[in-house]
């Protein structure tokens, strides 16, 4: 047998990602140079960062090795392995990040490589300046070559980014400029001056009382309700926030600097962590993100930073992405964020093999939010392993963390999927209702499970039906391409704005 030593080299990551990149080993030749009858075809997860390594023991032969990055990019290498104790090194090198501080975001697939980024963003900025200058001169006809816009859109698509909304927004902006109209105001004599119905601030953290978190469903249901709720909400304090900008990109890095103060006493006398909502301006509305804090729950364990990346400033378009720089489940979250459930499942399997899932879910580690991420991937791949070792912990996630909607959701969804008796179904329904009362889930997957689970009972249970209707009414404003729930509360169109 021979040995492979693999890693994904990513400088400036800040946090070494132990389970970083899903890698596939496929044998194309055996030791004699023939295509084998039963070629090796296996997946493993290799570390990303400056140092770690993964090891694979394989029969001698030639291997095609593919590293599948969370961005969807695939890197390929071919290596010949001999029956030698000396390992064959395979180091994948990703393209460099536009800025060092965007290294994590580059690996996560949220920003393009440096070269792509520079080209795209410079040209985009030039066009915006041109359009704005032309607009100021009433006498000057405004003409932007449509082929330029097309070219920009093409470049953005080529970046493997989900930047279409940005492009569409600029497309609309250019279109309106060309048509001589203004995006934000109607003719003065026919329409009232629009007001910012949700009073957006560019970025802020607000707290929600976990004992009254059910009210969040109503709070995000309309701009008016949000304004009303927000008026009485307090800022979420004791988090250090660092802002870094680069033209159209803003990165908000959130340090969990204080995790003891942000608690309230629950009905049972236990401390419950305050919910933290990141509120970010989107045009005249806001994005509300259910920030996954505290991560971990244990205030004495080291806490990773969170990053919120915003494209296109405060415009009404562009993508907002939330990531957690967790060295164990960071990779899983990246794949989850990009909808790559198959690869997320591979990370989960590797984490299970290493005993990390049990560790996350166990009382000792006290990171129920990370455990929920693993549980959602586990639920998606339940078909392969209906009685996973971690299944009993799902009930603990529900029972031990009464502030955590996702704990009740993963338990409810699991019981529902594996129900054998009517009691199981009753248990599932009770869990889902419990989850609803705990407020908006942290994870988008949780939102989906809650909505579909409540729907399943809505014909026979009036309360489940009402809850489903509320959840479904918000679903259209949830970004499906995010791991963490992000709900857009758009300002009403100008004609509906109240003076």
């Amino acid at each position, binding site marked *: 047998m021979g040995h492979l030593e693999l890693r994904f080299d990513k400088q400036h990551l800040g946090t070494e990602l132990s389970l970083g990149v899903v890698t596939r080993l496929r044998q194309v030749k055996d030791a004699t140079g023939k295509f084998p009858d039963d070629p090796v075809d296996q997946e493993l997860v290799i570390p990303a960062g400056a140092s770690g390594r993964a090891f694979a023991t394989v029969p001698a032969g030639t291997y095609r090795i593919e590293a599948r990055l969370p961005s969807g990019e695939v890197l390929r290498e071919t290596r010949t392995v001999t029956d030698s104790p000396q390992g064959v090194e395979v180091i994948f090198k990703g393209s460099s990040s536009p800025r060092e501080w965007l290294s994590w975001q580059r690996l996560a697939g949220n920003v393009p490589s440096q070269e792509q980024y520079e080209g795209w963003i410079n040209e985009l900025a030039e066009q915006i300046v041109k359009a704005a200058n032309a607009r100021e001169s009433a006498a000057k006809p405004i003409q932007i070559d449509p082929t330029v816009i097309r070219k920009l859109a093409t470049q953005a698509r080529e970046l493997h980014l989900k930047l279409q909304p940005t492009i569409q927004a600029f497309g609309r902006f250019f279109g309106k400029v060309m048509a001589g109209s203004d995006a934000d105001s109607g003719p003065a004599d026919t329409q009232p001056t629009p007001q910012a119905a949700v009073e957006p601030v560019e970025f802020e953290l607000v707290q929600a009382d976990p004992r009254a978190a059910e009210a969040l469903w109503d709070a995000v249901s309309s701009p008016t309700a949000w304004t009303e709720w927000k008026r009485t909400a307090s800022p979420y304090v004791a988090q250090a926030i660092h802002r870094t900008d680069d033209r159209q990109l803003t990165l908000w890095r959130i340090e969990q600097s204080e995790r003891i103060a942000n608690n309230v006493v629950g009905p049972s006398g236990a401390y419950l962590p305050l919910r933290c909502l990141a509120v970010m301006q989107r045009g005249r509305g806001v994005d509300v993100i259910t920030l996954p804090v505290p991560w971990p729950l244990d205030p004495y364990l080291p806490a990773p930073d969170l990053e919120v990346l915003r494209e296109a400033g405060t415009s009404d378009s562009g993508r907002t992405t939330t990531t957690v720089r967790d060295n164990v489940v960071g990779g899983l979250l990246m794949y989850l964020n990009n*909808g790559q459930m198959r690869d997320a499942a591979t990370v989960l399997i590797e984490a299970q093999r290493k005993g990390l899932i049990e560790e996350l879910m166990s009382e000792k580690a006290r990171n129920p939010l990370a455990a929920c991420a693993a549980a959602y991937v586990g639920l998606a791949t339940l078909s392969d392993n209906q009685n996973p070792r971690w299944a009993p912990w799902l009930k603990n996630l529900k029972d031990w963390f009464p502030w955590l909607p996702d704990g009740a959701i993963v338990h409810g969804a699991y019981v529902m999927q594996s129900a054998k008796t009517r009691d199981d179904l009753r248990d599932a329904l009770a869990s889902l209702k419990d989850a609803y009362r705990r407020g908006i889930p942290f994870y988008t997957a949780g*939102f989906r499970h809650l909505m579909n689970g409540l729907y399943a009972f809505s014909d026979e249970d009036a309360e489940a039906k009402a809850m489903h209707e509320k959840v479904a009414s918000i679903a259209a404003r949830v970004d499906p391409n995010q791991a963490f729930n992000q709900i857009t509360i758009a300002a009403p169109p100008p004609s509906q704005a109240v003076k």
Partner: protein
Amino acid sequence: MPDPFVEDPSLVHHVDVNGPGTHVISLGIGHYDHLEGGGQAPTRHHLNLKQLTSPPISARKVAAWFIENFDCTESPLASVSLVLSERQSAEFRNGRTGRTFTVPTGLTEEVRSALRAWVRRAEVDPQNRIMLYFSGHGLSEGLQNLYLLRDYGKDSDDPLAGALNYQSFIAGLATRKPSNQFLLFDACRSADQIAALNRNGGQPIFAAVPDGRLEITQPMRQCPIFSTEVDRQALGRPNEESLCARAFIRVMNGACCTKEENEWYITTDRIVEALTYFQNRELRKSERRQPADANSYARIHLRRLTRTPSIPVFVRLGDPTLASRVRIEAVRVRQTGSRRLVSDPKSEGWQAKEEWEIELEIGEYTFRAEHLEPGQPPITSDETVMPTHTEVKL
């Protein structure tokens, strides 16, 4: 025994299988009565959507492929049903039996009946596999997707009465007996206010029955796949099958195969990346991209193969001007006499191409471009043909 074809007008193929079977439904909604050119009162909720030619062609191809090629021995083909909304309804001829059918035309009630009949047939055995292919207009907003049926917009007060509500549809379907559910939605996922403002609009088709699977020991494996990402379009050339339909057939032919305990299976393992690759390959020369997408995942066997799988191989010449001057073939290494012609300018009807697509069994090959004029050495390349595809440049 009642005639299944009489009971369900969408049924175009039926086999009594002894044990778990595969039940396929293929829906192609291209003609929309109430959109421009639809021939009936136009809806004011037209959303600038146009008539489509590709969906019925795609749905026909998918149905025909299953009838003629689906040889799975693990869960053999039990039924295929078809719904086609096309400008001029044409018959569908079953390539295996020769029988012709006039299938439902895609009105909401017809689609509802066809979908319910499809699931009813499959409910006899929880181990059954159901497979759905839908092609037509789609809308998307947040977590919701809506798939428009032929009579979309008929009711101006509730235009989405002529649409399928994706979330309710899959939630209802997940409470039904068939345990293996593969659903491929080949439709745009364009955002529109109508989807946002009518989030509970559209037909669920199946009411959720929470205790519907209580007696069933098999786990529910539901794997819905979208042919495109949110905010993107699903593409197809006029009067041809869609990119996704072509990609899906490649997948089912062998591109997504894996070997398990000495048997080859097509699985959902790498289906998103395979669909993405094949779709985008056809868009290389355009500015567009169509990456496939999935919100949830389940590993399902889609087909157990009866032979070594065939993998799509794309062969091109480094110097394309040589196309008319070389004969290209693929020679299987260590298998005497095993060779496949890729291109021969002397053959009848030969046309110059930038690239040739063939299917080859997994294994090691030498690709050779032999000059027709003697005296020049051949151009060769040794390649191992492997899933999901192989590219060869000579």
